[in-house]
């Protein structure tokens, strides 16, 4: 059932659109006409439809089954969100239209901002970041700008727990910082003593995910915030796991200075095979003056969009992107928020945590939990239960594919060996979790029973067998090229 590439099937003289015939007037291109062949194949509409429908069926998706990717938060994407985002009044408006013709859109952005600020208990939000990592950049740039404004030229060291997402250190570096890793303690949380030892007047701040990537709430978070603030730094909170606590805990109450919010994780805008995302970033009073443009501001006449730095209060650190942010995602996220409401968001967090703990409780006897006690919204296992079985975490994950499930997150966080991070989210039913746990239980038992071959050859029921990623990297083929005719050689 292999599907050829469009380049192998389409032809440059075929097309799937009808357009009126050009009139053939003289061009005004200043001689810059494109004369050489481009080589883009076309397909008639029926062929194009079939090609992409068939390709789609080679994907796993949340609409097909449980997607237990820890740290990624694959939850149900309500179709109401899709419907609302497609209303012509939201989808078919231009970012540079006169503002008097887009007042509803600006109001929608304002409403979203209000929800985000209220849920986090913060006074400011920058909506424009295009994704989570872009939001991190937004937060860390504000910290850098605040330090610069204070004349703090020495504070360039950022503390990052070893369990952090890779984006954290990468972002810090993009702001001209260096990173310093804080180890985890035996409970999977920041080692407070190690943290204290690392404080100093060259510390710009800390980047902390909470709940952290081990699925645990950082109990000492207020103390950490106080320590950082006392030492003159800022507290960046990675909001990737906000979905575990939204509606129950307001990060502003924990002392954070900046936090991005992945609208696609917490507020269920679809992942779309890798994007687009949206990463609005909230700020404390201390950092609010440095928030980038554009901004939405509430005035006595409603919400207003400020596009230019000169028109903004404070000292914006700049602009992060053309235009105003991911409006399509704003519409979806606001729809999701309104659907859930204050009560529903709280219930969702609770159910997410309940579901993860249920998995932990059901599997702790056959798999090895990385840490003792309960967890937040995701359950972390290590590979001790696979010891001497000849089965690796990767093999175990690939075997899940043959059972009809997407694998969990593997080998992350880095703090435990052969990590398996399972996040069910709140949109799974108990019976669905039971089926999933039954499967993992049976797999764990099969591994222990010496069926390593079955694991190593997995998957066998997927659209492809295991793919050779090493070959791909060693000899990169990043595009299709026309086959060279043998006769021509």
């Amino acid at each position: 059932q292999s599907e050829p590439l469009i380049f192998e099937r389409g032809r440059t003289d075929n097309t799937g659109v009808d357009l009126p015939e050009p009139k053939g007037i003289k061009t005004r291109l200043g001689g810059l006409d494109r004369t050489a062949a481009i080589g883009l194949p076309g397909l008639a509409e029926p062929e194009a439809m079939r090609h992409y429908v068939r390709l789609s069926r080679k994907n796993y998706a949340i609409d097909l089954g449980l997607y237990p990717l820890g740290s990624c938060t694959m939850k149900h994407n309500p179709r109401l969100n899709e419907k609302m985002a497609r209303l012509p009044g939201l989808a078919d408006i231009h970012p540079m239209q006169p503002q008097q013709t887009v007042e509803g859109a600006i109001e929608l952005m304002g409403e979203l901002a209000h929800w985000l600020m209220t849920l986090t208990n913060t006074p400011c939000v920058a909506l424009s970041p295009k994704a989570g990592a872009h939001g991190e950049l937004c937060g860390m740039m504000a910290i850098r700008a605040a330090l610069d404004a204070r004349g703090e030229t020495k504070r360039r060291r950022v503390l990052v727990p070893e369990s952090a997402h890779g984006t954290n250190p990468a972002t810090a570096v993009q702001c001209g910082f260096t990173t310093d890793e804080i180890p985890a303690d035996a409970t999977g949380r920041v080692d407070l003593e190690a943290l204290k030892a690392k404080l100093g007047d060259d510390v710009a701040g800390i980047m902390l995910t909470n709940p952290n990537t081990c699925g645990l709430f950082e109990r000492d978070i207020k103390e950490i915030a106080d320590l950082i603030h006392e030492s003159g730094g800022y507290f960046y909170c990675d909001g990737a796991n906000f979905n575990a606590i939204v509606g129950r805990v307001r990060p502003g109450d924990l002392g954070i200075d900046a936090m991005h919010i992945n609208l696609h994780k917490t507020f269920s805008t679809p992942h779309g095979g890798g994007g687009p995302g949206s990463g609005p970033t909230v700020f404390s009073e201390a950092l609010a003056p440095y928030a980038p443009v554009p901004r939405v501001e509430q005035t006595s006449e409603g919400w207003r969009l400020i596009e230019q730095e000169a028109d903004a209060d404070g000292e914006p650190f700049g602009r992060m992107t053309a235009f105003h942010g991911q409006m399509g995602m704003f519409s979806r996220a606001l729809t999701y928020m309104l659907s859930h409401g204050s009560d529903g968001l709280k219930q969702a967090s609770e159910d997410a945590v309940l579901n993860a703990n249920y998995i932990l409780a059901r599997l702790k006897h056959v798999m090895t939990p990385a840490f003792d006690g309960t967890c937040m919204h995701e359950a972390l296992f290590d590979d001790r239960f696979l010891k001497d079985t000849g089965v690796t975490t990767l093999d175990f994950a690939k075997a899940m594919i043959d059972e009809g499930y997407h694998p969990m997150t593997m080998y992350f966080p880095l703090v435990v060996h052969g990590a398996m991070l399972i996040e069910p989210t709140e949109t799974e039913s108990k019976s669905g979790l039971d089926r999933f746990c039954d499967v993992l239980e049976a797999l764990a038992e099969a591994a222990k029973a010496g069926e390593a071959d079955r694991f190593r050859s997995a998957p066998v029921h997927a659209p492809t067998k295991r793919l050779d990623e090493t070959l791909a990297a060693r000899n990169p083929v990043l595009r299709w090229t026309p086959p060279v005719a043998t006769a021509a050689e």
Partner: protein
Amino acid sequence: MRYLPLTPQDRADMLARIGVKSIDDLFTDVPQAARLGGTVDLPNHMTELEVERHVSKLAAKNTPASSVPFFVGAGAYKHHVPSTVDHLIQRSEFLTAYTPYQPEISQGTLQTLFEFQTQVALLTGMDVANASMYDGSTACGEAVVMASRVTKRKKAVLAGSLHPHYADTTKTLCKYLDIDVVSEPARHDGLGKLLDHITEETACVVVQTPDVFGRLHDLEPVVKAAHDKGALVIAVFTEPVSLGLVKSPGEMGADICVGEGQGIGVGLNFGGPYVGLFACKNDRNFIRNLPGRLAGETVDADGRRGFVLTLSTREQHIRREKATSNICTNSGLCALAFTIHMTLLGEKGLRQLARLNHETACDLADRLTSVPGVELLTDRFFNEFSLKLPKPAAGVVDALVEKGVLGGVPASRLFPGALEDVLIVAATETNTEADLTAFADALKEVL
């Protein structure tokens, strides 16, 4: 709660299995002071119908581009997207899939990304492309960072006709990386003395064509001047449809080409999500320094062709602080929309579409310049051009709104305090004869 499958009984059973008494027992790590007593001060949940009514009311306050004669461009363009595109990107398997880290069950996403990369390379005339960026402006910034890393130089020169949002975004991204970004003053009449600023320390020159005023540029002299000094040329575009009619950056020798893909497959969406295109020459050093994801071809255990994400040692989730960029998310679904629309167009359709855009713009330019006092500033353009008006353009645009015409972008909205009499006007295949007439008539009335 329609999205939450657990019933009260389920919750009770599960708590019992976990061995705790209440849900609060799972949140005991939260400091007491941060535990909310009740719920956050926001409205409670709404029915589907209530939500629809609420959001529809907001939507109804806006003027959709399709509902009026519409000539706004300046970085985003109103094009017709075939209905097939939206149908396909709403397929559950595309819409609700994650990043294709498990290639065996992600071939749909991976093969389309491979097709996307190839299409972008062909369109731009470059050798390779990545699997998309957030948008054109961030792609521009990342390109400058990449050029700096490739050349090991710390200076960048931006043309004065680069979209100012792109220039600002680039400056922000480079701000703390100690890359010195120099932007030429705003100018609609060419590149001015841009080439004089290129030195042996220059990592790259950034030129947009068609530029923010609609003007087309021949990049060959820029390439020659830059390469003479060992600098790279980054070509930028905001209107991908132009590449169906206008010589590509690759043909003119650019080293890196970035742009906004919105014009093909993606709607206006008030500015986002869009899709950044990022292409470059096939140079090992370039490729190892690319930002963002790459799909690559490989084989499975049976030797059959398949696709995977590759060269991930460039990326943050592997390389952490040594990554080429902090980017994680791409613009996958928009890239898919781009790919599907491009597949429907094919070269034949793209060339015809581009031609139509150009002809409509030429027609419009003739009509508007026949209005007394209006002067065309752009002698070579694709589907967008700039006019000199006898009055400040911002006021003219507002007056046109009253006449029911969305008549372009005043240059002063992009370059505050400058070019007050300049209006940037775009025309596309969606503009009818009646639209053009309405615009010319309205302009005559308001001037």
